[in-house]
């Protein structure tokens, strides 16, 4: 019994949210459902996100594409080095506002 959830999506205030844990195929749907509630600019803080898989990247991509249709930005900040590395290999650093 692990008390800590595998993945968490926490509202930090304003339009800012924190992702923590692991974003993979089993948790990506949860994030997708949360992100689908928004249609204005949002910022995702990833300092507690330890792992992202291609399914996780797919959800971020879908959200970014959806928001860009209404001229809103998806900004991603405070990436851990190994998560940043995944973003860079796949080329997500070129299409996201990474800060």
């Amino acid at each position: 019994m692990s008390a800590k959830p595998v993945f968490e999506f926490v509202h930090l205030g304003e339009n800012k949210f924190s992702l923590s844990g692991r974003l993979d195929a089993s948790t990506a749907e949860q994030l997708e459902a949360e992100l689908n509630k928004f249609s204005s600019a949002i910022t995702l803080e990833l300092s507690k996100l330890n792992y992202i898989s291609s399914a996780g990247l797919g959800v971020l991509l879908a959200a970014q594409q959806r928001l860009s249709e209404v001229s809103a930005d998806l900004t991603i900040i405070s990436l851990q080095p190994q998560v940043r590395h995944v973003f860079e290999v796949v080329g997500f650093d070129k299409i996201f506002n990474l800060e």
Partner: protein
Amino acid sequence: MASDEQAIKLLQDENTRLRRAVEELSVLNDLARAIGSITDSNKVMETVINRSLKAIGAEQGIITLVEEDSATPMKTLVRSITSSAHREQFHLTQNIVGWMLINKKSMISNDIRNDDRFRGIRGLSESIRSVLCTPLMMKNQVKGVLSIFNKKGGKQFGDDDKRLLAIIAAQSAQIIENARLDEQEREKLVLEREIDAAREVQTSLFPRTLPAIPGLDIAAVSIPAREVGGDYYDFIQLEDEHWEFVIADVSGKGLPAAMITTMGKGMLYAQSLLGPSPKSMIINSNKIFRKNLPKKSFVTMLLGVIDPRRRLMRLATAGHCPPMYYSAELHNVSPLLLNGIALNLMDDPSVEELEVTLQPGDVFTFYSDGITEAENNGRNQFGEERLTATLERLHDGTADDILRGLLRDVQDFVGGNEQSDDMTVIVLKVPPPPGG
């Protein structure tokens, strides 16, 4: 005389007891017949609720199931025959379930609003006055709660009602549980079938045999995860004795990913007729995907074209894991870093092409992220550093030795952890001269 009155009283009591027993039996008989061959757990629960309401004469009813495997033990499934009452009753039943998990016995409250056990419940509707509830027990565990509300005619729930509901619950618990297990089993079967279908499609896309390319020793394998990911590799013969090879990873899993891979394969074979440029193949593939794929899908891909006569290899990537290169000259392994982003991310990405000379003893290892992201129990990843060390240790062997050795290292690292993503590896080795 007194004894006559006593005898009459006894007879009357006995009569009441018998009538009640007959009533109870007929309710149970009714219930058993109604449930009969129903296998849908929702319908079973609806029937149990309806029969309870009829037998006891109450207005509304709910069965709340306790979710065992949920992160929150209080998470419940709510079924009601009056859908409009869902919201208010949700908080109430949450409280009841909490109480039941501890006390494991029936409970009556004929005045909810002034009952300490329900103090502070949000949004309790005015329409709910009284409740009678009883646990659905299986093997001494509370699997759910059967609750009914508001005895008709403004009456109060009594001990007879409590007894009857408990009998109904005792009869129903096993049936509801069986229907649930049946459903889970059926859902699992459907999922298994889809997984099998996806695996069949994916496996049919891989080459059946590896080509013989002059001056190259080749080994390749793709090991699908249980729930198939979107890995793909292939070797395609081009004009002028050139060979193209590809390793790719479609985002997502299962059938949707397998369908995209199928499309990608067709696209690559069509393009192979156009000429041996990995860079233009990536640019064209991106154009085609941009027009056809959903926007949330993307594909990482690495393409190589081998010219065996001139001992040259040209590489281009679309956001795929960087290949590892063992240089016989430098005696070390380093990643070949190439610019290029995943397919379907943007309209006109810049793509870099790298040309390398194939030197005797060189080893090129291409892989999918299932290798570097393979995890052990401590949630550590195999990673590029371990991959580099493994390849430096193994470079002397044949392509097959290197591939097997690498898979063994990954397997040793992850231990008993289930493989969560497809793992694909292509090893190209330029054999050293005999005796060299």
